[in-house]
C-alpha cells in the first residue's frame, strides 16, 4: 500500500515532465523528422541559453525571491554584445569609427553591466527590504528603457563571423556537441559545485528554508543575497552574449518573457517557489522538457496564439504541483 502511494506520489510530482516527454514521443511518431539530428542540435542550442538564465533565476527562487528583470537584462546584454561585435565592413554600423574589439573584452563589458544590474537588484531587495517581485519588476522596466536609449530602438545586425560561430560551431564538427551546449554544461557543473560544495550554497538553502533562523545562526543574509543577485546578473550577461551570437543580431525586444520561461523551467525541474529546494540537474531537466514541448508544438503546427496559452497553463500546473508537494508534506 505504502509502495503504491509512493509510486503515485512520484508520478504526480513529476507529472509535468512525464506529460511533456509523452507529448514529444507522440509528435515523434506523427512527424518522424522530429527526431532528426538537426532538430536535436536545435534543441540543445535553445536549451543551453535558457538553462543559463534559469540557473541565474534559481538562486533567487531558492531564497524565496524572484527576478523578473532576467529577460530584459539578457536583451540588454545581447544588444551591447551585438553593438560591439559588428563587422568592420558593415555599412550600418552603430559606431562606424570603432574598430574590431577583442571578443573577450566585449564579453567582460557585457558581464560588468549585467552584474551591476544584479547588484542593484540585490541592494534594493536585501538592504531596503523591497519585495523581490516589486524590485525586479521595476528593474525590468528600467533596463528596457536603458536598452531603448542605447539602441535607439534600431535592430543591430552585421555581426562578425567569429562571434556568430560560437552558436553555429560544434566541437570536432560533431552535431551533438555544439559550443553552446558545452558552455552551458560547464556553467552547470560550476554552479552545481557552488550550490552543493561551498558555504555560499549552504547559506542560500538555509535562507530559503528559514531566513530568520539563518540570520540567528550567523549567516550574513544581506551579503548572501547580494552575491545571489550578482551571480544571476553574471548568468544573464553570459546568456545575452550567447543569444546575440545565436540570433545573428539583436533588438530591444530580445529576451522578452525569458524570465517566465526560466521560472517555468525551474519550477518544472523541482525548484520550489516556497524556497529552500532546488537542484541544478532538476533545472536542466525542467528547461529541456519545456523546450521540447515548444519544439513539439512547432512540429505539430499548433497556432502561435495557442502556444502561449499552453505555455501559460504549463507554468500554472508546475506551480500547482509545487504547492501540492508542500501541502502533502504538512
Amino acid at each position, binding site marked *: 500500500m505504502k509502495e503504491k502511494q509512493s509510486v503515485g506520489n512520484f508520478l*504526480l510530482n513529476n*507529472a509535468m515532465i512525464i*506529460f511533456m516527454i509523452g*507529448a514529444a514521443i507522440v509528435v515523434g511518431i506523427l512527424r518522424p523528422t522530429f527526431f532528426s539530428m538537426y532538430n536535436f542540435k536545435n534543441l540543445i542550442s535553445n536549451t543551453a541559453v535558457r538553462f543559463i538564465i534559469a540557473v541565474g533565476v534559481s538562486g533567487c527562487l531558492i531564497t*524565496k525571491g524572484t527576478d523578473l528583470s532576467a529577460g530584459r537584462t539578457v536583451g540588454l546584454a545581447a544588444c551591447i554584445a551585438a553593438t560591439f561585435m559588428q563587422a568592420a565592413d558593415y555599412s550600418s554600423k552603430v559606431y562606424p569609427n570603432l574598430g574590431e574589439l577583442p571578443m573577450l573584452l566585449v564579453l567582460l563589458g557585457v558581464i560588468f553591466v549585467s552584474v551591476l544590474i544584479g547588484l542593484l537588484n540585490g541592494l534594493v531587495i536585501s538592504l531596503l527590504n523591497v519585495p523581490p517581485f516589486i524590485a525586479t519588476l521595476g528593474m525590468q522596466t528600467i533596463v528596457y528603457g536603458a536598452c531603448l536609449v542605447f539602441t535607439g530602438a534600431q535592430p543591430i545586425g552585421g555581426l562578425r563571423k567569429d562571434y556568430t560561430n560560437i552558436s553555429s560551431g560544434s566541437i570536432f564538427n560533431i552535431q551533438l556537441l555544439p559550443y553552446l551546449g558545452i558552455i552551458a554544461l560547464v556553467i552547470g557543473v560550476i554552479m552545481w559545485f557552488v550550490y552543493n560544495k561551498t558555504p555560499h550554497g549552504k547559506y542560500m538553502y538555509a535562507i530559503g528554508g*528559514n*531566513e*530568520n*533562523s539563518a540570520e*540567528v545562526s550567523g549567516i550574513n543574509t544581506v551579503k548572501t543575497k547580494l552575491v545571489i543577485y550578482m551571480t544571476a546578473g553574471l548568468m544573464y550577461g553570459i546568456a545575452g552574449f550567447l543569444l546575440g551570437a545565436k540570433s545573428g543580431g539583436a533588438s530591444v525586444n530580445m529576451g522578452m518573457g525569458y524570465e517566465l520561461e526560466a521560472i517555468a523551467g525551474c519550477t518544472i525541474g523541482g525548484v520550489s517557489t*516556497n*524556497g529552500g529546494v532546488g537542484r541544478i540537474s532538476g533545472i536542466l531537466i525542467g528547461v529541456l522538457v519545456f523546450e521540447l514541448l515548444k519544439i513539439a*508544438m512547432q512540429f*505539430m*503546427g*499548433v*497556432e*502561435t*496564439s*495557442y*502556444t502561449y*496559452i*499552453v505555455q501559460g*497553463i*504549463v507554468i*500554472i*500546473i508546475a506551480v*500547482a*504541483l509545487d*504547492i*501540492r508537494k*508542500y*501541502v*502533502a508534506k504538512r
Partner: protein
Amino acid sequence: MEQNNGNRWDGKRPDPITQVKEGWYEKLLARIPLTVKSLNIIIAILFLLLIAALVIGTLKGNGIL
C-alpha cells in the same frame, strides 16, 4: 510582538522564529482550505485545459477547425 515579554520568549506560546518560518503559503492556506485532494482536482482540471488547448491549437493551426 505578543510572544515577547521584555525581549524574552515565555516558552508557552509559539516561538516567533517558527511562526515567521511559515511564510506566505501559510497565510494563503489560512484563507483557502487547500488540501491534497482539492489540489489533485485543480491539477486534473488544468491538465484537461492543457490538452484541450493543445488539441484546439493543432486543429486551428492545420486549418481543420
